[in-house]
């Protein structure tokens, strides 16, 4: 992936260890923010950044990634396996 940013998640009991945002895909639709405002915010380039990687539970995090209309949010488990998009 080209223009990506990685965010490490260390939340206790979570199966998700890393959140990756593809900034080329992100269009700032901000649907992920609607699902979890504690996890994401926009920067001035209208791209999503993760400011709270541990702020929410796994289900909400998956839901936020699923809500993205350009599939710009990738979730990985502790072994580096991609959980979403499947």
């Amino acid at each position, binding site marked *: 992936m080209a223009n990506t940013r990685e965010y490490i998640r260390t939340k206790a009991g979570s199966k998700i260890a890393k959140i990756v945002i593809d900034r080329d*895909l992100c269009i*700032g*639709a901000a649907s992920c923010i609607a699902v979890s405002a504690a996890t994401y*915010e*926009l920067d*001035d380039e209208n791209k999503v950044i993760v400011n709270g990687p541990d702020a929410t539970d796994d289900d909400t995090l998956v839901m936020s990634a699923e809500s993205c*209309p350009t599939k710009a949010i990738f979730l990985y488990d502790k072994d580096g396996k991609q959980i979403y998009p499947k």
Partner: protein
Amino acid sequence: MTSYKYLIIGGGIAGVTAAETIRTKDTTGSIGLISDEPYVLYSRVMLSKPNFFLGKVPFDQIYLKGKEWYETNHIDFLGGKKATNLDTAKKIVTLTDGSQLGYEKLLLATGVDARRSTIPGADKKNVHCLRTLEDGMKIMANLKTATHAITVGGGFISFEMADLMRMANMETTLLLRESYFWEPMLDKKSGDMIEKALVKGGVKVLKNSEAASINGGECVESVTLKDGTTLPCELIIFGIGVVGTTDWLKRDGIEVKRGIVANEFLETSAPDVWTAGDVAEYNDLVLGEHVIMGNWVNGREQGRVAALNMAGDKRPFKFVSFYTTQGFGTTIAFVGDASPGPDRQIIERGSPEANSFGRILIVGKEIIGATLINRTSEMTVISRLIDQNIDVSGKVQELGDAKFDLKSLLK
């Protein structure tokens, strides 16, 4: 006659999110989903994005659900079908092919249509609007041969299409009936910033201009403006607003104004009929008025909340809507209710000179909305300030200070 426990009219993000949400609450109730398009759920917001058009994003990325998703979740996808009549007493929907479907609970998530030009020649080939995947595919094909392009309108479709046309190296003209870009939703200062970015990006912007006729044979070859100027053009896109899809409902006693009228539970005036998405004119609890918020995030959230209510979980819709767009190195965001009105107090943040300019709209003591040019990082915090009904009456000076951290106002 087939009958569904839950019948959803509209296969876009509101309708599909509703189906998905109902399934989490009711694992066995039958769900039917009618769409006038033959396609499974696709990303309507991606339709206007240059990366998609120019093939930088694989075409199939546009689809957000596969056919198997509908099957696995036991959702009957009735694609390519249009509803023409609703009988709320008998609880029956009639489709264009004459067939009828019964329902226990109905969701109207029919969206809106793009407003089409009616000037002479507007029916020629390569005269486009952008609403459906079909429209997008026609533009994509046209892009390969056109060298002169015109985009009409002062909103996000025209802005994003102009970006696309320039990326495809076309000579691009933007026709604007208004005196500045995005009038009257934006103020002149913001509109001028956008115009400056367009011009810098190589777009010829013609303000106070209107197309009078579209000329050519089968395909468009040129456009004549009201002032008599004729511009060569092999591709023209109209981004001139939307029209409702509610005419078929007016006979049936469902209250319709600009959209389908609903309360805060997204219930319409008819029993067991809900509405969601671009077509819903709902009682907004945050803003305290009936509004239509036509954007992706709102459609998704309303689909979810309408579905919860349909499945018996009575819950009001309370959400601060927002919308963003970008192009020509410029980002634009609208938060909450940013529409103009005499009762609004407007506080400016930053300046066009600094190429970073926001406007915060206040009614009474509270923020109701904002517009942000190159300040999208403030979108989330402003939506929270609106949501939490923060009293900002004593903070006017701070709000007007571009460096003041808005987060410090949160509870």
